């Protein structure tokens, strides 16, 4: 890598880090400047970045990534229960566990490609979900969800004389409670680190291999190249990202439930990645933020608030609009999600990044030839 590339890379990550860390400031005008939502942006950003390493680079569409998210959450809560409320062992434990599950599942599913791979991963995720709901209830606590209790061993907490806690049990990083803004900054720093790693992976020879697999795997095989280890590694890495995201979800809110593993959750991360732009570095983070933002905004509306929000319009128009829009907000948020999904795939398969690329193309003076490269390929 030349010196210029390196400096571009550093400045990119610097700008990215600045943007993420100042999110509480520049997102507050649009009503998203509170820690709970910001944490979600960042955590699902990590999830989507990890998913993009698999789907974006290799083109293998996994429909079962939510399983790793769930595994990460369960592992974290168990670490809290057994070891204590410190987040460091919890995060490490989750990443390792999710990674080993990914190794196992990847070993089996990666024998097939295309739709078979999608269906196999879907089958595995459903299997995990069903097991978590039924037989594994001693481990996962079934429908109620797993949470930390005061009676749990928490070895290290007791060892350091912090076993007795008045009030609720809070996760902490050496005394700093991981709720509110400290929690957000913890997740944000992890997002920046993981984003940097993903960027490096994409530019490394390993990333080039993955992209080559995407564009023509048969040719790779014919040149005497074994693609399996590369795919396997990519699968494990993205599984670890999902595990980390699941772990952070449990850290900011120490409750793990099986519904996190349902296949609609897997579908959601696919949508985030596609909405932002498959294969781009920034796209998945953007997509995750947008989806979570809209989810939050849309699901908070009901008929009355909608009516109030549109009160600046004439009465008849207000009524008509309320009737039209109301199925899409509140509990109907999934309808909006599904419609968005379709619209994006039909009209803008490259996601927002491609859209921005197109807009930039319009305003750019036409260069003679060779200017067809859009953001989605870059």
């Amino acid at each position, binding site marked *: 890598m030349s010196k210029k590339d390196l400096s571009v890379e550093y400045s990119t990550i610097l700008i990215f880090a600045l943007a993420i860390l100042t999110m509480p400031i520049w997102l507050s005008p649009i009503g998203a400047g509170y820690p709970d939502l910001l944490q979600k942006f960042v955590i699902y950003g990590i999830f989507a970045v990890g998913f993009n390493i698999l789907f974006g680079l290799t083109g293998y*569409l996994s429909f079962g990534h939510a399983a790793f998210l769930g595994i990460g959450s369960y592992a974290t809560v168990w670490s809290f229960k057994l070891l204590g409320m410190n987040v460091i062992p919890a995060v490490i434990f989750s990443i390792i566990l999710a990674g080993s599950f990914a190794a196992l599942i990847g070993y*089996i599913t990666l024998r097939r490609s295309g739709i078979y791979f999608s269906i*196999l991963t879907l089958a595995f995720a459903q299997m995990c979900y*069903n*097991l978590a709901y039924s037989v594994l209830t001693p481990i996962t606590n079934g429908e109620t969800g797993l949470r930390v209790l005061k009676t749990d061993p928490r070895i290290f907490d007791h060892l350091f004389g912090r076993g007795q806690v008045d009030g609720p049990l809070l996760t902490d990083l050496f005394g700093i409670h991981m709720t509110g803004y400290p929690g957000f900054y913890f997740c944000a720093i992890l997002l920046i680190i993981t984003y940097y790693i993903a960027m490096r992976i994409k530019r490394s020879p390993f990333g080039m291999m993955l992209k080559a697999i995407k564009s023509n795997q048969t040719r790779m095989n014919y040149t005497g190249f074994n693609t399996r280890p590369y795919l396997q590694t990519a699968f494990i890495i993205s599984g670890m990202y999902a595990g980390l995201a699941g772990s952070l979800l449990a850290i900011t809110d120490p409750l793990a439930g099986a519904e996190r593993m349902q296949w609609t959750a897997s579908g959601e991360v696919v949508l985030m990645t596609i909405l932002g732009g498959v294969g781009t570095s920034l796209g998945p983070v953007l997509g995750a933020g947008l989806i979570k933002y809209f989810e939050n905004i849309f699901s908070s509306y009901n008929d009355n608030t909608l009516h109030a929000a549109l009160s600046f319009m004439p009465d008849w128009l207000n009524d008509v609009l309320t009737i039209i829009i109301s199925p899409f907000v509140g509990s109907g948020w999934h309808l909006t999600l599904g419609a968005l999904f379709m619209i994006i795939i039909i009209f803008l398969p490259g996601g927002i990044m491609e859209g921005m690329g197109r807009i930039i193309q319009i305003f750019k003076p036409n260069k003679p030839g060779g200017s067809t490269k859009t953001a989605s390929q870059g």
Partner: protein
Amino acid sequence: MDAILLQVLNGLDKGGAYALIALGLTLIFGTLGIVNFAHGALFMIGAFCAVSFNKLLTFSIKVKDESITFFDAYKEVPYLEVWWGDTGKAIIDYSVPLSILIAIPVMLLVGIIMERGLIRHFYKRTHADQILVTFGLAIVLQEIIKHFFGANPIPQSAPEIVAGSAAIGTWLGLSDNLVYPWWRLIYLGFSLSVIAAVFAFLQLTTFGMVVRAGMHDRETVGLLGINIERRFTIVFGLAAVVSGLAGVMYTPILPPDYHIGMEFLVLSFVVVVVGGMGSLGGAVSAGFLLGILQSFASMNEIKSLIPGIDQIIIYLVAVVILLVRPRGLMGRKGVME
């Protein structure tokens, strides 16, 4: 012996539903080359055809209750009963089988609109795009149903005459304890006859012959001057009808709610993969096979041996099949391997 026979029967009716959905999926995949994640939604729409037909029939009016004389009491009486008396009552009683008549044109229309409006534009896109757009469509359809019918399951009842159980044990000379609900038997018979009808349609008619030829080699059929696209559209409609009917008749067995389709879809995909992508016979036989396997796995004896096996057996079988025999049980060589 009784227990085994009972489990086989238990598996057959669920297997019938799997087989019907998987048949539609395979038809669509074989003809149009589309991986349709919205197929479960078609099953659900079928089920809600039955629900809304029933709602339509039981549209009621408040009538003074004559049996209570102390005060003015009112009860709801369906218009049909007011107009036609006992005939109306009978029609309401038979609402589920009668709604087949409504479901066929509705599903055909839904299927054709879906194909012409959306799926058509995705023939040349990647499988990933097809999966994603139909997945989005499935979410949209299911949320629309949820908006109109609510999130709770809506129970439907089978006609009074078949409400009880059939004494299968007595017929076969086994124990008298072996009984089986009539409606499930009817469902099994119904699914078998629908499957037979589809196969007959494909094997015995000229239209079916052209479709089969198109599945085999689309280009050549096109070169012979046959408008294969239009026929494939009708095939899509047919597949929609098949899974819609599966949904209609399943309502008395399992009260439909808005995500019933998703549950069946995932399993039906597994069925298609196990049977062999593009093989109609494979889809049907794998449907019944997995249904029976699932019902055996939910026996108490087996559950105590391997806990949780009933939840995962189908997925487990699919994984093993895909690893040992990647093209599925009856898949032909070279078709989507």
